[in-house]
């Protein structure tokens, strides 16, 4: 029973990380129809900041990671995506692929191809005993952090004027602009928030691994994106739940699959994705069926 509870908490924590990644990706997709593959490189930039600065000054490292995440996200917007705004979703997607690879090479050039290591917030790697159940402190912190960010983003979207404008732009950008919604501002704000979320993801992952390399952010982005697609990219809440489901599935597969086939656990996740997309092409939580192309 206790091992089940531990596995459940760990799974929830893994789900929370990918839910955050899916949220960051889904927010930008909402306003730009851009599935940003280069989101991982925002995570990586924040992770380098944490690993390099933490040994000198932990507070500065956390603040720096947040600032770097927001700055890299905004730089991506202004340097690349703002020039492609009127282009098709396919063009944006390919551009984000290219940007992702370019940034990975740049990180490699600056920091080398090998991973850098440092122990970040090692205090979180300990376990706490809660009524007989040993809980990984990082799992608890991850869940709390994700919950705070989810609630924060929800409050921002529903309670502030600019958040409402982001929602309007996500639903129908043309109409939003006719109402006076400033397209440039709404897009920049969305990128900035997604960058901040990427920094939070980087924090959790660097505490877990203590290392960072040029392709550090690729895997969480891939799973976040997969989660968002499963949940329905057009529906932010669905995307977050989708990311959560992917994280939970990965974690549970890791705990429960027999050792012989455990290395193939991601294959099972992809199988799940294929099954979902065949049955619900627009995602689990979107209304209606997919486009009829036949």
């Amino acid at each position, binding site marked *: 029973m206790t091992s089940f509870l531990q596995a459940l908490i760990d799974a929830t924590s893994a789900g929370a990380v990918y839910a955050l990644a899916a949220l960051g990706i889904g927010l930008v997709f909402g306003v730009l129809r851009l599935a940003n593959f280069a989101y991982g490189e925002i995570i990586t930039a924040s992770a380098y900041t944490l690993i390099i600065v933490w040994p000198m000054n932990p507070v500065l490292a956390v603040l720096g990671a947040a600032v770097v995440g927001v700055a890299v996200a905004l730089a991506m917007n202004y340097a690349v995506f703002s020039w492609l705004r009127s282009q098709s979703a396919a063009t944006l997607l390919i551009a984000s692929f290219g940007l992702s690879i370019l940034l990975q090479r740049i990180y490699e050039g600056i920091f080398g191809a090998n991973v850098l290591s440092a122990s970040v917030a090692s205090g979180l790697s300990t376990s706490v005993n809660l009524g007989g159940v040993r809980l990984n402190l990082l799992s608890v912190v991850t869940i709390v952090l994700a919950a705070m960010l989810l609630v924060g983003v929800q409050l921002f979207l*529903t309670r502030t*004027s600019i958040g*409402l*404008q982001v*929602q*309007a732009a996500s*639903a*129908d950008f*043309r*109409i*939003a*602009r*006719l*109402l*006076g*919604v*400033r*397209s440039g501002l709404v897009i920049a704000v969305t990128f900035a928030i997604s960058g901040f979320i990427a920094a939070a993801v980087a924090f959790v992952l660097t505490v877990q691994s203590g290392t960072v390399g040029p392709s550090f952010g690729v895997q969480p982005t891939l799973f976040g994106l997969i989660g968002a697609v499963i949940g329905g990219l057009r529906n932010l809440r669905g995307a977050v739940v989708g990311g959560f489901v992917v994280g939970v599935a990965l974690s549970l597969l890791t705990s429960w699959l027999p050792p012989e086939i455990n290395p193939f656990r991601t294959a099972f996740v992809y199988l799940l994705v294929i099954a979902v997309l065949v049955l619900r092409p627009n995602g689990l939580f979107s209304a209606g069926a997919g486009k009829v192309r036949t």
Partner: protein
Amino acid sequence: MPDTPVNGETPQNAASASARPEPILDVQNLSVAYGGVTAVAGVSFHVGPGELVGVIGPNGAGKSSTLLALAGAVRGKADRLTFEGTSLLGRKPEQIARSGFALVPEGHHIFGALSVSDNLRLGEVARRDRAGLATTREWVLELFPILREFLGRPAGLLSGGQQQQLAIARALLSEPRLLVLDEPSLGLSPTAIDTVFEAIAAVQQAGTAVLLVEQRAQQTVAAAARTHVLGEGRITMTLGPADATDAELLAKAYLGS
């Protein structure tokens, strides 16, 4: 006019200004083309302050393209295209919306997933300031009392007529000096159409200029100071309120002379 001598000119200017006030919207020789296909081919008209001007014409006559070009949503060419003396050419839709020009596009386009109240809040984005906001809100909800009942409800659950009322209410919350409506009666029941036309009359009485594009020729011609008939991207005829009872003329206006 920096070169004009001031002495002796002022009274004359004032007199001519009161005789024919500067138009709030001035369109001269506007054309719109989509990749070589001409939708609007040199249209000229104006709207005076507080005036209601109508545009009628069959589908594909270029009515919506004209409005979208005014609002900055599609690119148009014109000898002159000014709103309150400022050129609209090359400006972004959001800049135009924030300058006191509100377009309610065809098909109402409310945000269905958001509440009625949030939709109305989005109408306030284009306001210059929040002064008088409470008064505008109250006035708009008096104009469309049905919206008050459904403030907390998702806008997508409203009927077509209610959604159109919401779209107009949302536009009014920006406190525009010119309200531009693209076929507000499209797809509405006769009662809903009456509500919309009554609201338009009330808006004009409150001093807001209105540019009304419609398919309902008789009602539009009766309400508007001038109604331009658009056909194949050109103004083919201009009617006055007296022409509203001339069924033969209205039919001719539609079929083309």
